[in-house]
């Protein structure tokens, strides 16, 4: 079953637009949403949640259009957009007592479990929490109403490596039974290399790839060689960088076949992002 089906979202701002964004997620999996700063990750997530008005496109969650079913669907969705900075002077327990009223399936036991797990003191005020603790509190609120679909914007940024690792473990625990699904954006790609099943990559408002992580990494190769090698290959590559030893570049694995003897490695998600950004840069220069 599809938990999420996004078709053709467009949203135009003065200097940026989301261009025909489409992707989907099957139930029971973790999808990482990656892209550089300003690529359109948060705008897309806001479009999915109907927080912004879409110029075009549809969003189906659990097979239902969010337009017209928003309130009912959101009972089953957990979302966190950044850390919780609301009511800095209030105690955590006051804020949770307000939030829980919005959810018919609020789970007090789960809430208290997360407080304990994240070592959060409900008697503390929001302004007394560190940035990392604020994120954990926002997550606690998001995860305490038995949501089946969890959407998180940059949940791991601002957390130290140990806290991030704990969080990723929690994500995998959540999807273990197969009835919950997670979509989260991040630019810390090593987090995704550990736990994501699917990756959706957005660049400059457009979806470049949306596929399983394994297939994505398999689709590209990081190559290096002499400058002479580069001259024959340049056209076929996503982009490349010259250095004093020759060049390194990114190429689709299928296009690599004719070039025997070229040193090729499996790229990281970072490599893919870096060379697509380079392509964009090259194109911009070319157009001037």
């Amino acid at each position: 079953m599809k938990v999420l089906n996004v078709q053709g979202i467009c949203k135009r701002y003065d200097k940026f637009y989301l261009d025909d964004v489409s992707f989907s997620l099957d139930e029971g999996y973790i999808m990482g949403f990656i892209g550089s700063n300003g690529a359109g990750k948060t705008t897309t997530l806001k479009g999915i949640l109907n927080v912004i008005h879409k110029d075009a496109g549809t969003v189906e969650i659990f097979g239902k259009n969010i337009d017209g079913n928003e309130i009912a669907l959101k009972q089953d969705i957990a979302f966190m957009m950044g850390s919780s900075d609301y009511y800095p002077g209030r105690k955590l327990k006051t804020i949770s007592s307000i939030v829980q009223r919005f959810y018919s399936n609020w789970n007090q036991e789960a809430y208290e479990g997360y407080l304990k797990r994240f070592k959060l003191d409900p008697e503390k005020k929001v302004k007394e929490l560190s940035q990392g603790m604020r994120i954990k509190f926002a997550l606690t609120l998001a995860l305490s109403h038995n949501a089946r679909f969890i959407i998180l914007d940059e949940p791991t940024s601002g957390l130290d490596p140990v806290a991030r690792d704990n969080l990723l473990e929690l994500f995998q625990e959540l999807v273990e039974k197969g009835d919950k699904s997670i979509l989260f954006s991040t630019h810390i790609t090593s987090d995704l290399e550990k736990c994501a099943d699917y990756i959706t990559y957005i660049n400059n408002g457009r979806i470049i790839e949306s596929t399983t992580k394994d297939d994505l990494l398999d689709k590209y190769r990081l190559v290096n060689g002499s400058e002479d090698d580069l001259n024959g290959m340049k056209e076929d590559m996503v982009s490349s960088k010259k250095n004093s030893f020759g060049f390194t570049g990114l190429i689709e694995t299928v296009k690599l076949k004719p070039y025997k003897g070229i040193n090729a490695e499996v790229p990281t998600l970072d490599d893919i992002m870096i060379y697509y950004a380079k392509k964009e840069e090259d194109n911009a220069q070319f157009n001037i």
Partner: protein
Amino acid sequence: MRGISISNKSNKPIYQQLFEQISSQILKGELESDFNLPAIRTAAKELRISIITVKKAWEKLERDGLIYSVAGKGCFISDLSNNELGNKRTNIIRKQMLKDLLFYKNLGISEDEIIKLVKELYSKVLSC
């Protein structure tokens, strides 16, 4: 089980690493027949890798006849006679050698050179 080590930095796909480590444990007789492998989602969580990656490794093990699945109960190590184990081991070795030989051929190395190198290096491996 003897433990599994996964490297994100290896050029070998993760499902392949998983497949190779489990199949070698089976072929060496370290995993007894009918041993229940962990559920796919549990293994993914414990090894900190993607569910799809584990699924792929388990599917490859099943295709090679090393494990069998029972609906609702998971995957189990196949009951293989010594003869069958030997055959499967030979098959896996043949596949790997074919790949390696292709690589050497592309480097332009002759059969005699390869054999000489294998002899030389195998004695080193034995002492490891």
